């Protein structure tokens, strides 16, 4: 009996009219958890009932607490007939089970009905009293933290990264049970929602148990998916990376005497610099290596393995890469071998974690679904995934890697055929982070920190663990072989025994190690990577017709098509990459969806020019029949177009790499003479450009042979990718290579399109063109919609394709548009062409962009709250006074006056004139309380009671700092209608539903005390319609991390940012942002 759940129903509002006669409602509420139900009194004749119930108490196992959702049903009391349900609220209480997350859930939740949508709101408070259970055989895993984000959460540091955790649970799908024939659609939908909620809870608990077994305390990169297998059942599966995370008490927390989290925190680590990127941005200074060398002795002693001493000697060997590589492999092997699958769902890593990235590994398998006979032992599904993972593992081995990072799994189901896919990036990792045993790490941590306190004169006291270990590894030899900005590009595999044909050259950065000519990965661009120019979104699109078939024959047909699709997608990607003058892909996702009569493939990635990799050759067209003059003319025309496109793209993405002479590439170690030449070339860069443009014609160009009409088409289609409109960039990764100076204005959106392919286009070619147009049009639409945010970048733009029916293709995307400061980006580029850093995080520089942004009225930002401009007549004097007040006051003031450029300018001036550093008052509450305070206090000064919640698919929000993770949001909704036309047709129906999903996510986050959702994704959007019957149904599954954000400026006690963001220039066609 280790838990007591307490629920209080306070009030309702905006309820629908349930009694036509009186135009009112007699509402009451049922609160159900597990098998216990409580009811409130009936509040008669009101659309805004005040129940003010007692605290309903449920005494439950913590196992149930994890699995079961709290179910709240609002009903209309009817004396004579059955009570009518108004709607329901499901509350996942998991965030309350972890001491570091939320402590209370309290707020207005939309009352949701699967037929009518949102029908008013209900105010609920939920608390949990947990009793400690030390039972070793317990089935629960309360306290394990879950994070959707695929990088180490910002206010934590990873002490150990344990590795892959996976689990799946199966059940019968209620929609396909016999009872579904006699029950209402509502009952069936609710049964499904409840079941999936239950299964997610169970899954999370089981994964938590595995994490505890591994000695971890958190799951990062948690990805949970549903497979709606129809007749054969419902599979909920999840993968993630188990970690041991340690909370970082950040600078502001260090100033606060009382620590925010309640007792359970194991131990507070000594004050360190906020991880976010702060430590990274300071990294490139040479002082590190210096202090690192002083560390050598103490560190090698502290590590009780041979490996490190081995590494040390390797370091002295210097350039002897081969030897070192073997050693590295051995040690990594030992660290990873205990693991069945050395996979990591993370896509960005602590500095020094990733040593080499080998390339993308992927595996697909086509399966025929059969009914799951025993839900308790889902062996077949497990076996399927096991098989795929083994394959991935062996692929990685072939690349000389022992780990796979950026790992993900997906399925595509059509009738009884299912394609299982897995992909990741083969990698060699630094074994230090993979070490088991917390104690070791703690001692290691302490030891590594010690010397820094001795090092006099250096202000490195605030470095975090990773930096330290990075330093230590650097002097241990790793650093010598793999400089941070290029190390990960170096090939991990044996040069003489390459797994695939690749053109190797010496690294353009360090000139010691070999690098491939192109690099494809599924991870984000490492923060330390040196990049030339900006990145861009690259998509490869492909459709393949397939004969309709059944069972085995169908599966065989699909399996036969798959390799060809993979090959073609790969070729397209390669061509498009070259066309943009780039040499590496990050965040590669290849999705192949199966339909009745076709397969659709979509590959998205972010292309960049890695400075370490050689410049890409151009694309050369070669004809097969050179005799014909007209034909040759045609070919040379195409060639010219291609060359033009390449040079235009180079301009667009600012790719102007330093020209490197042939000899340099040829020689393993650059001679001093060449080095000086290199330096010189920097100043002569303007001359180099023209040379460059010529180069892609001759230097190992990529030859495309035109042998038939198809090839011509293909090549032409290459050129049809519409150029980006000026001011826009896009990428599908977390970070946009080459852009750092984000303003705080963001706009997250979800877009869905369904296309019907009319029977005309029955050829592969026609189909391809259709699909290509579809994607291009969707992109064009996005650019048009978001035009008011220019200059901006659409980040995390990942398309999800599905083939819901014959002839239908559905494309969905959830992404975020973020504006940036253009002028400054160029400045930064100039001053910092070397390793790009997330400079905006640097304290000193932070103030500079903000001043700039407050200066220019064109900067569009979002007012932080819903004030209705009550203070509009405030005099300048007031403002000057207020701006010097504490940050909390200021923000609440700033919240209230918005859209006032004059005021803002004035304030900006005030701040520039002086009093920039206002120290936050020492008696300020803990960050949590502060967050709550802010949220709770806002309504009092304005009319609205709705908290503004920002959402983003990224793991950060520019200009803001995450001070607390409140838990995972994982919600599943079904919406159905039998009056499709009346609801505005399919588009109207889905538009409303998506808006409702956003609203419910925001409400849940606000109730947890948060003000933002990060790493938000829409994992599933299954849409079915039957226009003839006027019906439609849609299932949506979303997830993300609820967090409390504060503006970075506030945290420093300088409310500079606040006025920038209260400024919203009303422009025509303005797209306000959140």
């Amino acid at each position: 009996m280790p838990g007591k759940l307490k629920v209080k129903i306070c009030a309702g509002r905006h309820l629908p009219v349930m009694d036509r006669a009186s135009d009112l409602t007699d509402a009451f509420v049922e609160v159900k958890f597990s098998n216990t139900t409580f009811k409130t009194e009936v509040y008669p004749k009101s659309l805004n009932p005040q129940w003010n119930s007692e605290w309903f108490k449920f005494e439950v196992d913590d196992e149930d607490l994890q699995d079961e959702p709290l179910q709240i049903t609002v009903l209309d009391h009817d004396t004579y007939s059955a009570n009518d349900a108004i709607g329901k609220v499901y509350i996942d209480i998991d965030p309350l089970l972890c001491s570091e997350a939320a402590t209370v859930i309290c707020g207005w939740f939309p009352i949701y009905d699967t037929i009518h949508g949102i029908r008013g709101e209900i105010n609920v408070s939920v608390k949990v009293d947990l009793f400690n259970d030390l039972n070793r055989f317990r089935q629960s895993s309360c306290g394990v933290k879950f994070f959707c984000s695929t990088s180490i959460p910002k206010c934590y540091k990873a002490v150990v990264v344990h590795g892959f955790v996976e689990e799946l649970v199966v059940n019968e799908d209620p929609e396909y049970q016999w009872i579904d024939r006699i029950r209402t659609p509502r009952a069936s939908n609710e049964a499904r929602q409840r079941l999936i909620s239950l299964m997610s809870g169970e899954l999370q608990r089981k994964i938590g148990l595995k994490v505890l077994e591994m000695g971890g305390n958190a799951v990062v990169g948690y990805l949970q998916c549903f497979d709606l297998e129809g007749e054969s059942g419902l599979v909920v599966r999840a993968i993630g990376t188990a970690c041991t995370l340690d909370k970082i008490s950040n600078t502001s927390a260090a100033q606060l005497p009382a620590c925010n989290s309640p007792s359970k925190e194991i131990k507070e680590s000594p004050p360190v610099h906020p991880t976010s990127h702060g430590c990274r941005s300071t990294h490139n200074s040479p002082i590190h290596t210096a202090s690192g060398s002083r560390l050598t002795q103490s560190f090698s002693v502290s590590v009780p393995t041979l490996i490190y001493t081995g590494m040390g000697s390797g370091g002295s060997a210097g350039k002897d890469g081969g030897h070192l590589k073997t050693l590295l492999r051995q040690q990594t092997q030992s660290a990873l071998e205990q693991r069945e699958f050395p996979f990591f769902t993370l896509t960005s890593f602590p500095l020094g974690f990733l040593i080499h990235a080998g390339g993308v590994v992927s595996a697909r398998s086509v399966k025929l679904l059969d009914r799951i006979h025993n839900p308790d032992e889902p062996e077949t599904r497990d076996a399927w995934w096991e098989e795929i993972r083994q394959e991935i593992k062996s692929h990685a081995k072939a690349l000389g890697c022992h780990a796979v990072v950026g790992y993900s799994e997906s399925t595509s189901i059509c009738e009884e055929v299912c394609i299982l896919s897995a992909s990741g990036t083969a990698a060699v990792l630094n074994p230090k982070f993979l070490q088991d045993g917390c104690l070791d790490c703690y001692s290691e941590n302490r030891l590594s920190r010690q010397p820094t306190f001795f090092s006099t004169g250096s202000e490195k006291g605030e470095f975090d663990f990773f930096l330290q270990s990075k330093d230590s590894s650097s002097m241990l030899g790793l650093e010598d072989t793999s400089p941070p900005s290029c190390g990960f590009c170096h090939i991990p595999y044996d040069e003489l025994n390459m797994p695939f044909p690749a053109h190797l050259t010496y690294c353009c950065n360090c000139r010691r190690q070999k690098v491939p000519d192109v690099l494809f990965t599924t991870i984000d661009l490492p923060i330390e990577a040196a990049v030339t120019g900006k990145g861009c979104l690259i998509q490869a699109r492909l459709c393949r017709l397939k004969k309709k078939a059944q069972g085995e024959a169908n599966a065989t047909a699909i399996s036969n098509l798959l390799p060809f699709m993979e090959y073609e997608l790969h070729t397209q990607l390669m061509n498009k990459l070259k066309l943009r003058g780039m040499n590496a892909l990050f965040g590669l996702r290849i999705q192949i969806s199966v339909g009745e009569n076709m397969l659709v493939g979509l590959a998205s990635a972010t292309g960049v020019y890695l400075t370490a990799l050689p410049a890409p050759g151009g694309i050369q067209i070669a004809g097969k029949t050179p005799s014909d003059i007209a034909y040759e003319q045609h070919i040379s025309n195409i060639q010219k177009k291609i060359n033009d496109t390449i040079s235009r793209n180079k301009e667009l993405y600012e790719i102007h790499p330093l020209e490197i002479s042939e000899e340099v590439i040829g020689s393993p170690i650059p001679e001093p003479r060449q080095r000086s030449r290199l330096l010189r070339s920097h100043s002569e860069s303007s001359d180099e450009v023209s040379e460059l443009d010529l180069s892609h014609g001759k230097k190992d160009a990529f030859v495309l042979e035109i042998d038939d009409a198809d090839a011509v088409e293909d090549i032409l289609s290459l050129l049809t990718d519409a150029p980006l409109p000026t001011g826009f960039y896009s990428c599908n990764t977390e970070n946009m290579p080459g852009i750092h100076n984000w303003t705080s204005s963001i706009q997250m959106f979800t877009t869905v399109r369904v296309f019907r392919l009319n029977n005309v286009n029955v050829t592969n070619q026609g189909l391809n063109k259709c699909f290509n147009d579809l994607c291009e049009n969707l992109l064009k639409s996005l650019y048009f919609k978001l035009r008011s945010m220019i200059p901006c970048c659409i980040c995390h733009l990942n398309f999800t394709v599905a083939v819901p029916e014959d002839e239908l293709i559905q494309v969905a995307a959830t992404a975020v548009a973020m504006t940036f400061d253009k002028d400054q980006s160029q400045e930064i580029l100039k001053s910092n062409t070397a390793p790009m850093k997330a400079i905006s995080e640097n304290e000193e520089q932070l103030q500079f962009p903000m001043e700039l942004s407050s200066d220019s009225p064109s900067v569009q930002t979002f007012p932080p709250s819903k004030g209705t401009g009550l203070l509009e007549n405030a005099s300048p004097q007031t403002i000057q006074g207020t701006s010097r007040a504490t940050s909390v006051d200021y923000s609440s003031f700033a919240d209230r006056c918005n859209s006032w450029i004059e005021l803002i300018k004035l304030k900006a001036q005030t701040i520039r004139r002086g009093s920039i550093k206002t120290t936050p008052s020492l008696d300020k509450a803990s960050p949590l309380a502060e967050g709550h305070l802010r949220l709770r206090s806002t309504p009092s000064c304005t009319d609205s009671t709705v908290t503004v919640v920002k959402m983003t698919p990224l793991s950060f929000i520019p200009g803001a700092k995450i001070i607390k993770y409140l838990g995972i949001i994982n919600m599943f909704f079904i919406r159905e209608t039998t009056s499709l036309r009346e609801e505005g047709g399919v588009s109207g129906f889905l538009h409303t539903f998506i808006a409702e999903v956003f609203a419910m996510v925001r409400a849940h986050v606000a109730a947890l005390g948060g003000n933002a959702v990060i790493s938000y994704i829409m994992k599933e959007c299954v849409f079915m319609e039957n226009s003839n019957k006027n019906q439609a149904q849609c299932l949506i599954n979303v997830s993300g991390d609820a967090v409390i954000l504060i503006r970075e400026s506030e945290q420093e006690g300088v409310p500079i940012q606040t006025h920038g963001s209260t400024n919203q220039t009303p422009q025509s066609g303005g797209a306000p942002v959140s």
Partner: protein
Amino acid sequence: MSVELDVFVGNTTIMDEEVYQLWLDGYTVNDAVSIRMKSGILEQFGTTEDVLESDTMDHYRTFQMTERLLHHPSKLVNQVLFQIPPHRQAMLIERYYAFDEAFVREVLGKKLSKGTKKDLDDVSAKTGITLKSCRRQFDNFKRVFKVVEEMKGPLVENVQCNFLLSDKLARDYAAIVFFANSRFETGKKKLQYLTFEDFAFCACQLIQNWTVGAVDNMVEDMDVDLDKEFLQDLKDLKILITDKDMLDQHKSLVCTGLRGKIQVFNEMEGNFKNLSRGLINIAAKLTNTKDVRDFFIDLVEKVIEPCKADRWLISDVRAFLTQYTNSARALDGFKHQAVWERYMCVIKSCILKMYHD
């Protein structure tokens, strides 16, 4: 290939003000697309008609979903479905409740009933405003009317609190409600030259001076209905024209005061009795609801037209009315000073406002 479904939903609802205006103006999606195309937006952003159409559709859907909330602006502020920054909410409300001059002139003073609504297609044909837009504007008038009609407290404030409108718009609505309640005639041909602004100004004067609220500000309907007692008292003013001596005395006082000060002195002198009779008769008849309705027409016929016929300048009118009002004070045996002042200050400002071409 055809698009079956196409939606774009932002966490912060994206709303284009231009498209909003087109929607408010009652254009169909297709019309709106062609209007937008004419603005050169395609060339400006290098995009295509499909894109524009898809964008317009998205906006129209959003607006249709918001419309329900706009009917009760306080709901818009507390709703959860759309995340809209406050200043945008204000813009949405303000524009939704804005109305066309041409339309309001057609409907002003009419009963806001189903019958009037049925005639909106005529209004639409006459004004060139789409029927859809006419309906929205009419429904807005009616909705505001229903809500504030029975409310205590000042009319403008009530409108503002319940509909979160700007000062200016709230005052306009107060005028509309006031006119609809008393059903002032504004549509006659003779009144066509008057703008809504003229009427709104007059309404404001009437509300401030002649309603119950002008004397007691805590009664129901205080700003909507005219003060019955006051109207009754107005009958007493008749003495100014019925009593021959008093009329003559009044005339001589006015003439003395104005001699040499106005250009149309002779015309004034000749017409004084007619003008005075006109003004006093209007006052005396205001107890009849029917005559209240004709208030403006009477002002035009009895005062404004005769003066215009004699080419009075507005300064002449002002001087005359000032003198006319003040002279009554000096009349022996005239004991209704308070009523007189209350009546004349409104009449004077209304006439001056209405005295133009």
